[in-house]
């Protein structure tokens, strides 16, 4: 089945102006059938107004074994968060 029906990742945009978000995955023979299946499986309760499907094989994922070197170095760089800075009263609302 995985040969004739490869895996696809489904992304749905809940409203205009928002980004497409990953909703799940499904099996389908090609992109046309994948879009239909995405509509049938993931938009039954008015979840969105636009659907993307991407072959799962086209996604390059980060290696879980490299999670430490990828993501931990940001942990102590709290000055990257806007809340780190005190805004002078005179500036007012930003």
């Amino acid at each position, binding site marked *: *089945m995985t040969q004739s029906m490869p895996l696809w990742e489904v992304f749905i945009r809940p409203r205009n102006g928002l980004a497409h978000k990953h909703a799940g995955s*499904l*099996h389908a*023979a090609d992109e046309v*059938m994948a879009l239909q299946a995405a509509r*049938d*499986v993931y938009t*039954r309760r008015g979840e969105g107004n636009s659907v993307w499907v991407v072959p799962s094989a086209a996604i390059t994922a980060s290696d879980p074994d490299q999670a430490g070197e990828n993501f931990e170095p940001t942990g102590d760089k709290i000055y990257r968060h806007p809340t780190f800075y005190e805004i002078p009263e005179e500036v007012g609302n930003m």
Partner: protein
Amino acid sequence: MTVYHALLELADDHLVLGHRLSEWCGHAPMLEEDLAMPNMALDLIGTARTLYDRAAALEGKGRSEDDMAYLRDERAYRNCLLVERPNEDFAHTVLRQLYFAAFMHPYWIAAQDSTDGVVRGVAGKAVKEMAYHIRHAGEWVIRLGDGTEESAARMRDAVEALSIYVDELFDSSPAAREAEAAGVLPVRADLRTQWDKTIADIFGEAALTLPEAPYPQRGGREGLHGEGLGHLLAEMQSVYRAHPGAQW
């Protein structure tokens, strides 16, 4: 024969086909279709409910949509024969769906000008649903027809088996003619050109040919049905008949 009977024919078409599709629930060949089939079933049953409700109001005997669906026997059902055909395999199911949706889509487009407000309301919603049913069933017909040796053979078998039920779609019963004359429902025969075109486009891609049907089957509009409808109704009506007046 009245508009009431014509709406009943239309409602029966939708309920019976909706029930047939619902039989795939839990049994479809893949999870994706296990959701797609009931999705389409619910579109059809939703349409049937509104039409039964409207028909019951026109009849004026205080019957409910449930009474219409669950308390009429086989001979009182007025659906066309196509919609009651058994699911058989997936090829039969998607072809039956394509044949019906290719008829109902232009039907609802025309019905948007109905003199009946309820029919206009149903039409506005159903026209979008039928467009999707054509697309969903049509893409499957193309892939099965132009697929493997096995899928192509099954698709050809389905075409052979179901094409004798096509002509009945375009016949107008005396009740339908009355509703057509009153501007409530579209003239069925007028939809043939569009149906032929929809099917020819899809069959062209599916490497299928529509066979001549020299002996088309008819009788559904007079209550003369195949053996399968009795079994379908027995199952569908069993709960309501065992618990008359049950609400859900």
